[in-house]
């Protein structure tokens, strides 16, 4: 069980949106994390330092939250190593092949009313729901 947190989730979501809006207004770029991360891989272009800085900001975020609130950021990550390796590969491969992930398609793309992003978001939501159902209620049940 995890606690239902509508207000914190809404505020957190709004901050994600604010970051996406500012990146577009200031630099004209889509805040898609898979796009930013995958373009750090060779060949390296002139946006390398900016993209790396964005990722460094992401990595620093939980420490900033801990510094402000004085409380540790808690999370539960599966310790099934083969599963997490497979999951990571599928997430990386699928996001780049499909041209985006939860942020690029799910937030920025939907907000631009992109048909591609609507199709991608519906598709990955559907396969994610089915995957969890199979893992928890077919195999695990």
């Amino acid at each position, binding site marked *: 069980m995890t606690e239902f947190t509508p207000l914190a989730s809404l505020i957190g979501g709004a901050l994600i949106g604010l970051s996406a809006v*500012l990146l577009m207004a200031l630099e004209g770029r889509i805040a898609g994390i898979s796009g930013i991360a995958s373009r750090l891989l060779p060949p390296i272009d002139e946006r390398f330092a900016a993209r790396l800085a964005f990722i460094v900001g992401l990595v620093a975020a939980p420490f900033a939250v801990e510094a402000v609130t004085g409380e540790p950021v808690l999370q539960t990550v599966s310790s099934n190593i083969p599963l997490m390796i497979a999951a990571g590969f599928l997430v990386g491969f699928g996001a780049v092949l499909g041209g985006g992930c939860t942020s690029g398609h799910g937030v920025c793309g939907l907000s631009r009313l992109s048909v591609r992003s609507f199709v991608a978001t519906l598709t990955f939501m559907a396969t994610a729901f089915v995957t969890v159902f199979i893992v928890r209620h077919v195999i695990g049940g």
Partner: protein
Amino acid sequence: MSVVINLLLGLLFGVGLVISGMGNPAKVLNFLDLAGTWDPSLAFVMGGAVVVTFVGYRLAFRRDRPLFDAAFHLPAKKDVDRQLVTGAALFGIGWGLGGFCPGPAFVAIGLAQPGTLVFVPAMLLGMWAARRFAQKLA
């Protein structure tokens, strides 16, 4: 200048992920578990993010260019093709297995759980492989 902007916006994005709960794979997996311990919080993350972005983009696009660049860099592709659907489908399977998508995975690196520390390199390898694969198709 661009480095400072991106650092701060990455931090803002990451703080949003932490506060929203989306940085926690257990919460993501419970959102995806409609038939079990369903936690609807993530719908509020998506909702908050999309509403702000939808309105904010409209304000941003009133100008004919961003503040610090000559033009907006928007995706040129418009057609729904097999690559889009296949990629999204695989992405969703991986998301459902691990509870991480790329943003939360980077946010979680410093918390150094073993599952995260193998997920991120595997994700980068997957990204690299997909770029190779897509180049072959093209």
